[in-house]
């Protein structure tokens, strides 16, 4: 299992590099002059030339890329063109809110969608189920920024209970996290419901009942573990969506996170910041994907065997313990 993890981590590297290449290329080829960004529009041509030389903008693009990446591997992400701060410092400040928002929303999705999905499956075709089908349909269609605005109108403007901006106190975190989760609740509760319905029809559930077990145990122990896989897949795929969607949430709620940083940086063609943001985001997402896969193997022993079998096969091929 450990070997599998290492293999996956190793596979991440070319992908992250690929991402950085593409983004770097896009940014280098797009219009806009970083020198002007830094020195301002009124700077003299001479100063601009000097700055361009300093930034290495006159080198061919591949050279620029290598120079950049050389610094990245030692942890130096450079200085922001617009804020003049060290990029690492900026990320240190802006990453935590984004992480809390994204993972907080994934967490709330899980704790709401899974029990709800189970309840809907058990009470299939009841009035509750039918109402929730319609409700889920609408909730899944509501974009986070709209539910955000509605919640702000209700809870901030009219009721004054929750702040409309910022992210520093728990009460400020409530609305952004909930709005990011609403669509996830709707979608994942449907997925869990469908998966549970599928599992409940299986023969081994009948065996469990024939053992005289309590129905609640049949559902919670026997059915649930088998039903979780599609939900894990869906939530795993939602990680990427959360990071993307957090951009919009941060703009709406005025949260000082990575998303807002990226938007500002894109507007000003602040290459170091953009690159850093993209690289770090893709690393986090790749790690999240790996964790999702590990969660699969944790839940389903057949997948666990598959990983172990690959290891065993490789051992056979490479001879005795080639490591």
């Amino acid at each position: 299992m450990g070997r599998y993890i290492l293999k996956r981590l190793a596979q991440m590297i070319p992908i992250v590099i690929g991402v950085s290449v593409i983004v770097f290329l896009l940014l280098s080829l797009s219009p806009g002059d970083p020198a002007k960004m830094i020195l301002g529009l009124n700077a003299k041509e001479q100063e601009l030339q000097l700055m361009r030389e300093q930034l290495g903008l006159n080198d061919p693009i591949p050279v620029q890329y290598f120079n950049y990446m050389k610094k990245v591997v030692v942890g130096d992400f450079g200085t922001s063109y617009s804020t003049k701060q060290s990029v690492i410092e900026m990320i240190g400040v802006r990453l935590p809110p984004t992480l809390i928002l994204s993972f907080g929303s994934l967490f709330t999705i899980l704790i709401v969608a899974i029990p709800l999905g189970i309840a809907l499956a058990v009470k299939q075709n009841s009035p509750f189920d039918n109402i929730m089908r319609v409700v889920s349909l609408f909730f899944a269609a509501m974009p986070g920024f709209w539910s955000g605005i509605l919640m702000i109108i209700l809870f901030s403007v009219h009721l004054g209970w929750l702040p409309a901006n910022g992210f520093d106190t728990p009460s400020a975190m409530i609305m952004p996290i909930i709005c990011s989760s609403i669509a996830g609740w709707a979608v994942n509760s449907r997925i869990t419901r469908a998966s549970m319905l599928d599992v409940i029809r299986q023969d081994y559930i009948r065996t469990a009942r024939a053992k005289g077990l309590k129905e609640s145990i049949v559902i919670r122990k026997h059915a649930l573990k088998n039903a979780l896989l599609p939900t894990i897949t869906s939530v795993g795929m939602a990680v990427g969506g959360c990071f993307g969607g957090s951009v919009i949430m941060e703009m709406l709620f005025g949260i000082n996170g990575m998303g807002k940083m990226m938007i500002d940086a894109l507007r000003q063609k602040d290459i170091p910041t953009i690159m850093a943001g993209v690289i770090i985001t893709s690393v986090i997402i790749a790690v999240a994907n790996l964790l999702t896969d590990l969660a699969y193997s944790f839940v389903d022993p057949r997948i666990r065997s598959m990983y172990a079998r690959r290891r065993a096969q490789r051992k056979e091929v490479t001879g005795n313990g080639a490591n």
Partner: protein
Amino acid sequence: MAQIDVTLAPARRKKSKKRSLWADAWLRLRKNKSAVAGMIMLATILIVIYSSPLYLDYDNDVIKPDLTHTLQFPAEGKLLGTDELGRDVLARILWGGRISIGIGVLSMLLSSIIGCTLGAISGYYGGKTDGIIMRSLDVFMAIPSLLLMITLVSVMKPTITNLIIALAIGSVPSVSRMVRAQVLYIKGQEFVEAIRAQGASDFRIIVMHILPNAISPLISQFVMEIAGLILAISGLSFIGLGVQPPDPEWGAMLSSGREHIRDVWHVTAFPGIALVLTVVALTLVGDGLRDALDPRMKR
């Protein structure tokens, strides 16, 4: 009196009419109540929105500001009130709908064409070609699609055409993957071998035999993707990177209305409702299509 009178129980056999796959699917779709509701909703929305040029004039109704009547609800002659520049909210919603839906559909078409091509080539030829294409797509998929779209839009000028291209590129990786999976499945079926044995060229096999079979389960996915793209374009416009003013767009309307939420709610409520209704309609139709076109579905 004893009579030898043996009557065989009539064997009831349901008459099976010969029906084509499409006619069959249409019948199933018609029976599905929520799909029918979705289709009616969608048809209504499309008719209302696309007939708007008949009674709306872009310059007068949609973009002309009227600073004497801002933020009114209700307002005279304006069913849904006026926005912060005095413009008719309803007119802007209808016009913006054409833009949003149009972009959604066009980018879906573009990404389908590219995605089908890549997926088909990758799935059919396999081997190194497959490896290269899939690895490259993996790189694109490593970036969240919204971030990818944002990046693309930022580096290009925000014209509608560029928006369509950016959105399409954002969708291509997942579409290619789906098409590839289908192609692999169909490729393994015997009739493909039979056709190849008849000497058909690769191109002919892919275009005339594999793709038509691959597409039908994907049609419902495509419809749902349109909904997703409409949400994406709203999101982009919300943060200012999508459709530019003075053109109306639902997300952009939400963004500009946001500054006035302390005073009025109608400027932000109605565009949102339009967005939700459109996505709901598309979702219902997409779901219905999936149930109708999937031959393995049991009732």
